[in-house]
């Protein structure tokens, strides 16, 4: 534990145990883990941390704990006891859920009324609402339903000084005050601790089908994808999967059962010579599977949707002459996850190359997972925004003592 006030791990643990209870505070090495039961306890814990210059990392189940820059050891604020779906007024199609609730258990409860939060994040069985929101994760369904910024209608947060604040509300349409929940989404726990989230809900996709087309070169999908996105069809997800030697395009459509045949006919017309076959739901696990091999370097790239196939194809051609291998999934929205099977020392070069390739068209690349051996010399975020000074000022206003996840975010925020 790093503390400029000489606060020790033992002192810290004792104080936190006094807040959350003996059984909910434990020490492991330099880290004190505490599991509060409500926002009021979180406020107390943050005040202790803030006063003693100890860093706090909000923690769900740790599925994305390695994302962003490392944070000095301090307090691990576990949300595991705050894990319930608080309200589900299903006729209003909204819900309020605690940040420690896993995505899958929330969805299971919502499904009892045929509803869902229309987002397919990574590791839904383990990942928590708070962690998913803090990292702004999203999957292929974003094409139809938008991302978290379009689905979150309100939030409760606790600031570093213990202020408990609500933002937004429980109605879908609401323009009263600043949308702080949009600021919190994707802020990696650097501005406040998210304790509750209000979502707008959608009807669950009761009838959906997936089709898959395959081809060696990703570039072969460029034209079908362009045409498909330009039609009046409304697929809920489209993803490109590509490796060194092969690629596939998956399309998922949710509609009324009687409309599937007509949709399939239309799709076949678009894909022309490229064979399109009925596929299985499991293909949508592809993004998550990229993370399965622990030694892979994982990048998140954001590009224009018209570049998805060409950039994938370039990677195929480029790696054909190289020693290393890769796999990627790219959603039609332009969000791409790349898993590189690469020597650690070659990763920074590739990262730079991809960044300069995408920069001209407004794209970006974040290194989500990198070997510790090269982390020190690497810019994880690649943020060259001219609003960085403003972002730092927001951080300073929200968390002047840099208590919350210091250094984890862009520009060392």
């Amino acid at each position: 534990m790093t503390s400029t006030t000489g606060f020790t791990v033992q002192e810290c643990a004792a104080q936190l145990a006094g807040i959350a209870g003996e059984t909910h505070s434990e020490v492991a090495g330099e880290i004190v883990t505490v599991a509060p039961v409500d926002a009021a306890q979180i406020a107390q814990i943050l005040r202790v941390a803030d006063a003693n210059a100890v860093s706090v990392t909000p923690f769900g189940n740790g599925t994305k704990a390695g994302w962003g820059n490392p944070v000095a050891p301090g307090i691990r604020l576990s949300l595991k006891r705050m894990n319930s779906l608080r309200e589900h007024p299903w006729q209003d199609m909204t819900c309020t859920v605690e940040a420690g609730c896993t995505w899958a258990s929330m969805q299971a409860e919502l499904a009892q009324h045929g509803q869902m939060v229309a987002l397919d994040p990574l590791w839904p069985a383990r990942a928590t609402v708070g962690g998913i929101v803090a990292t702004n994760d999203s999957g292929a369904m974003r094409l139809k339903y938008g991302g978290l910024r379009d689905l979150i209608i309100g939030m409760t947060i606790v600031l570093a000084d213990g202020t408990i604040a609500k933002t937004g509300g429980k109605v879908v349409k609401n323009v009263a005050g600043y949308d702080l929940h949009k600021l919190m989404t994707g802020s990696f726990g650097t501005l406040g601790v998210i304790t509750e989230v209000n979502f707008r809900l959608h009807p669950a996709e009761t009838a959906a089908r997936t089709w898959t087309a395959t081809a060696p070169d990703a570039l072969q999908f460029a034209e079908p994808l362009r045409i498909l996105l330009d039609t009046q069809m409304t697929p809920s997800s489209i993803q490109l999967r590509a490796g060194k030697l092969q690629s596939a395009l998956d399309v998922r459509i949710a509609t009324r059962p009687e409309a599937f045949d007509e949709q399939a006919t239309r799709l076949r017309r678009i894909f022309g010579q490229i064979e399109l076959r009925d596929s299985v739901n499991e293909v949508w696990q592809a993004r998550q599977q990229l993370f399965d091999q622990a030694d892979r370097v994982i990048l998140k790239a954001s590009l224009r949707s018209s570049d998805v196939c060409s950039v994938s194809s370039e990677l195929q051609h480029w790696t054909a002459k190289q020693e290393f291998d890769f796999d990627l999934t790219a959603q039609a929205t332009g969000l791409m996850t790349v898993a590189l099977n690469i020597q650690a020392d070659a990763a920074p070069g590739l990262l730079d190359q991809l960044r300069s390739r995408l920069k001209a068209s407004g794209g970006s690349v974040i290194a989500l997972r990198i070997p510790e051996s090269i982390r020190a010399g690497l810019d994880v975020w690649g943020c060259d925004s001219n609003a960085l000074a403003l972002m730092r000022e927001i951080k300073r206003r929200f968390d002047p003592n840099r208590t919350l996840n210091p250094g984890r975010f862009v520009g060392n925020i």
Partner: protein
Amino acid sequence: MLPQSHIDELRAAVGADGLITGESQLQTYECDGLTNFRILPGAVVLPRSAAQVQAVVRICARHKIPFVSRGAGTGLSGGALPAAGGVVISLARMNRILEVDIANRYVVVEPGVINAHVTARVAPQGYFYAPDPSSQSVCTIGGNVAENSGGAHCLKYGFTVTHTLGLEVVLPNGEIVQLGSPTLDAPGYDLTGVFVGSEGTLGVTTKVILRIVKRPEVVQTLLAAFNSPHAAGQTVSDIIAAGMLPSALEIMDALAIEAAEAAVHANYPVCGGLLLVELDGPSSEVEALMSEVRAICSKNGAQQVRVAQSDQERALVWKGRKAAFAAMGRISPNYIVQDGVIPRTALPSVLSEIDRMASAAGLRVANVFHAGDGNLHPLVLYDRAIAGQEELALDLSYRILHLCVDNGGSITGEHGVGKEKQEALGYMFSEPDLATMQLVRCAFDPENIANPDKVFPRTRLCAAEIPGPYTPHPLETAGIAEIF
């Protein structure tokens, strides 16, 4: 008033033809769509570029002159009301569409571009810009960004923020920053998300990257006549419960129907509650869903159900709906427009309570609402000529907003807080909530010069600035635009 030296600096920044200081010309800018608030600005500038906006803001920052940016001035909450002696930055001359990228479904526009012109530009390729406030034929994208404007179709398509990918902004210190990007999830805080809907308090928008959407294959509009708005409201709940997401679900009560008929002869059925359902999407899907909607209407006792048979008929249906506010002038000398939101399920009880409150006050309230998302637009009718009635009407309209908050809703769904609802924001949010919002405000605008004294509650209101009843905007009187 502004000292001559500041005026000279402004003239140097925007040129003599970009500066207005004459009193009679300044009067054009003394209010927005909330016409009972009027303040004369010290000067109006009409910049032609982001660099000129930057130069103006730098002058304001240097001398701590408050500034208010302004589009078409159609806002209904006083957001573009000038600061006394301050500068109004009109973005009307920055009205170019800079880029159209159909393959990536976005356009880049300057803030003075009119909402409907975006759709007009991309319509030949089969696309449209989804947010459709009723003033869309005159209101500007910059104003839409400031207010996070909605419209009748946001139930399905979302709001301005849903369609804003990125912004170029002149910060209150004069710096230009790019927020967001044509691609998703740019590294860093989602400042675009915070800026949209900040009502001009965080800076001046000089460029906007907007998503455009493919036109649906089929659009069908159904009208169903019920005995009461309650039955229409139950139908809305049943439609939603059946798992449908129509593009619009609108209800008008008898008073609103009467007024709209008188104004535009929309050929509405005479009834106690009129429901308008619009479905869009692939034709096979829309047809199947429309028959389900018909069945739900019948189950709830609809006396008449009809589907608009042509584009002209649908346009007429919408014309009546969008004219409903202005039409109130035909059945009442004066009226106040409100904009509250409630959870959909609270609709029957809130409507009953509004009825009760109106009766107790001896006033009539017409109801027009975006029922799908619980956005009520109660219109409090009164006669200013009757002593004391205006005060009664004002009091009633604010109590209706409180009723919305008490039912778990919001004080504004699309009109913004602006000047009108500053105090009501304090009813909806607690002190810590407001203090947290102020952290954002202070990070962007530490000197408090960007649209000061708006949105957030004041410790007290001056008597001359007490929010007031609705008087028609000049554009509305001239029949150029409708309000929502």
